[in-house]
């Protein structure tokens, strides 16, 4: 039999089941860490931008523009190949989590800034009238309402974070894309590997998109409904 002429998806999946499951879990793990980190950065710097906090706000603006206007692949190269020049050696896992976090954090800063700024002025005034200070108004008024306004755009960023983990192929972190293609490189089951990747990512991305629609309906502000 000539190699690569047969297509047997089932054999590919069952023979490499453990490796593929581990890899898929790695994808989910680094995605989850990236989403978490991007949320923390986004809320913090988004609030700094919305409140125009001196020094921090312009620095956050520069950070956002640099990340948004340079290729993500180049950012990975910077972390993995350029940092060691300064004695900072990060392993594949760390570079993966750091790069998706830094990337998602920049986009989330914009998402949350817009969300916080979209909270009607009268809500803030109501917070002040209730005796909350600046921090109290943020925690009890701006944060819960602003993050809800920012929800659709931030989930879109999270979906991109998940998809971006596939680029870790270039540094060899064993998430799904790296693993499936490495198996394919040995067994010449390229089409099977590509099928597994397509099905996995589409299932994941489509579920997250469906989640947006559910959450949008449930968490929309009463007056926007």
């Amino acid at each position, binding site marked *: 039999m000539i190699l*690569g002429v047969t297509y047997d998806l089932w054999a590919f999946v069952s023979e490499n089941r453990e490796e593929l499951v581990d890899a898929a879990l790695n994808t989910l793990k680094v995605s989850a860490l990236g989403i978490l980190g991007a949320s923390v950065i986004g809320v913090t710097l988004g609030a700094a931008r919305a409140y125009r906090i001196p020094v921090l706000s312009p620095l956050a603006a520069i950070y956002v*523009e*640099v990340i*948004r*206007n*340079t*290729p*993500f*692949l*180049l950012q990975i*190269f*910077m972390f993995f*190949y*350029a*940092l*060691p*020049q*300064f004695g900072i050696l990060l392993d594949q896992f760390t570079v993966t989590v750091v790069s998706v976090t830094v990337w998602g954090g920049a986009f989330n800063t914009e998402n949350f800034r817009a969300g916080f700024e979209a909270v009607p002025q009268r809500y803030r005034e109501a917070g002040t009238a209730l005796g909350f200070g600046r921090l109290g108004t943020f925690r009890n008024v701006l944060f819960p309402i602003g993050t809800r306004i920012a929800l659709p755009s931030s989930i879109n960023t999270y979906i991109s974070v998940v*998809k*971006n983990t*596939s*680029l870790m*192929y*270039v540094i060899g972190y064993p998430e799904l*894309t790296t693993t499936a*293609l490495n198996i*394919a490189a040995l067994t010449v089951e*390229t*089409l099977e590997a*590509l099928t597994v*990747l*397509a099905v996995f*990512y*589409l299932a994941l*991305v*489509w579920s997250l*998109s469906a989640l947006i629609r559910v959450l949008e309906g449930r968490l929309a502000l009463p007056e926007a409904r």
Partner: protein
Amino acid sequence: MPDWAEPVARYILEEGLPGTLRVAAIALTGSVLVGVVFGTLITIRFLPLQALIRLYIEVFRGLPILVTVFIVYFGLGEVAPQLEFDPLGAAAIALILWGSAQLAEATRGAVQSIPREQHEAASALGFGWIGRHRNVVMPQALRRLLPPGVSLCANIIQNTTLAQVIGGLETLEAGERSVERLTAVPPIGLGEIHAFEIYGFVAVIFFLISFPLTRLAAYLEKRLIV
């Protein structure tokens, strides 16, 4: 400036950048053509056609672009030998699939945002479907497509770097090869690592192209809302 800097900069700008711009130009043209046509056709109430275009949009917006690049580069040639492409060609095709899906969705929104009265007025003037769209609906819809079109342009230019993964000579690959060459032991290289300087230079190139575009997109969006 150290001695190695000038030849590296020349190599990146003369060998790498043209590759980036060529892929971006092809990808942008293809994305606009396919995206606008698909986005307009999906507004026709004909279920099989709508379902097919919807599937196309959801698949290519859903897949990581790198996976689409691999499907085009490794997968298509496996299915049919005449569908083998060089790295830059494969990247351009993958970017067209992704970009057109993005633009089709934006076009659908823009076309559907044109009030029904405009369609009715055009029909009253005796225009058929094609005349109505060509003379009345599309001129208005295309204006609304300008901001997403400009941001897509910036995104496409950044995503041309995915060609690097399959070895296509574009700006990032030119930078990568330069880093490797300098790292090699003499007499081939210098035995020095200059990754930060070289990738920094590549970052500046992309920033200078992309920043004006994202600003322009934001400006157009603000102006069109008013």
